[in-house]
């Protein structure tokens, strides 16, 4: 199972790496008019994201070739995302209220494990004093 996941991830990343090069060269300008004059430094910074999001970008690139495409990108559609933006901001408080007990439980469990089992420390084995004592 683990090997299958790793091989799948490698295949996805390899396909993404090849796609990212093509995307930075031609695709970015095809889906976003602002990218037509992007510097090569900016194109290089697009590579990791393009390698991760390549299925989505491939779809956008394909759609952008449609003559009816209006040339707008999601960021231009303010009427769609702006009303939800404030809900997302308020959602951050809910996220922390959910995460707070989880983080507390993790720390309590870890501190109890540290106090209860008191395993011999790998650091301690490497302390100069410990080494001197062993001799």
């Amino acid at each position, binding site marked *: 199972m*683990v090997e299958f996941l790793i091989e799948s991830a490698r295949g996805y990343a390899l396909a993404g790496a090849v796609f990212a090069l093509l995307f930075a060269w031609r695709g970015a300008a095809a889906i976003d008019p602002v990218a037509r*004059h*992007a510097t090569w430094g900016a194109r290089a*910074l697009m590579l990791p994201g393009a390698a991760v999001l390549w299925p989505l970008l491939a779809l956008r690139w394909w759609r952008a070739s449609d003559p009816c495409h209006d040339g707008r990108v999601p960021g231009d559609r303010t009427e769609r*995302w702006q009303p939800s933006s404030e809900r997302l*901001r308020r959602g951050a408080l809910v996220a922390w209220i959910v995460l707070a007990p989880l*983080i507390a439980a*993790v*720390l309590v469990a870890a501190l109890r494990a*540290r106090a209860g089992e008191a395993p011999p420390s790998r650091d301690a084995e490497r302390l100069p004093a410990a080494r001197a004592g062993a001799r």
Partner: protein
Amino acid sequence: MSVSYQAVQWNPAKKSYDRRLAIAVALYLVAFVASASMFTALSPLILAMRAFGTGAMALLVLILSIGPLARFTPRMAPLLYNRRHLGVTMFLMALVHALLATVWYHGFGVLDPLASILSSGVPFTGAAQFPFQPLGLAALVILFAMAATSHDFWLRNLSPLVWKALHLGVYLAFTLLVAHVAFGALQDAVWPGYAWITVAAAAWVVGIHIAAGVKERRADLRVRALSADGWIKVGEIDEFEEGRARAAKVGAGRTVAVFRHADGFSALSGVCAHQGGPLAEGRIVDGCVTCPWHGYQYLAANGQSPPPFTERVPTYELRLEGRTLFVHPQAKPPGTPVPPCRTVGAGGQP
């Protein structure tokens, strides 16, 4: 603000910020290795691995503190302004930590290093042997997704909403990293201070976010939306400071920022077109409404960024009755000019 994409839109402030950041990171790494090597005989590679790991964690705590602290004091605004570079630096430090750990602990066995990491801690024999490395790997994947999409190209092409939602993954990454540290380094650390620093850092981050969230929620509730003929009361004009705004709720979760400026009063969407920053908490700088998060600017009269920039936000109509200001809840298309609502007398003075 963008006309075309560049790798980094440098300006003197950003250069100074990054120079200080690079010096601080270098000083931390040197100080950690130098001080740790005085008390332990660990190999330089392990010391470097720990220096990068602790440095990345410290930087993450700083990054997560900036946003909520900025809601309490405007002094944090300069740090907020260039937070993206802090985030990418933190990811690179975490990546170096992960690469060194992978080479040292998983690089010389018969198993594939990734398979070795994912199968560590199996079989599970107790909390002290909790498989902490997969937690770190999961956090690194989230941080990579954030760093890889940090450029403005992604902000525009994913939309600020999706981009922000993706970047809220840092909360999950932080939780995973607290568990990674607690079940990893903390179990072996001789110095008890490590445990207390970890607990204090986690409590600080959680506490400051909840405190800032509660403050924001209270502010939202304070904004009273009183309607008259479909218009919504914003407040008395005497309550407005010159160059500042008041927020008004206009339904469907939308906030309007009503600014007082030299020409009178103008109303824009309360949400910045860049990352959804709270425009009502901004101020007028050089004649433009300026977002407190990243300095994006808009002309108060039409919601458009000054040329050659192209960002736009919706505008709203205002009406003055006596000394009370009302806003119409219907947003006008982004960038629509709306004449400022003037009071009696010049310069917007009643």
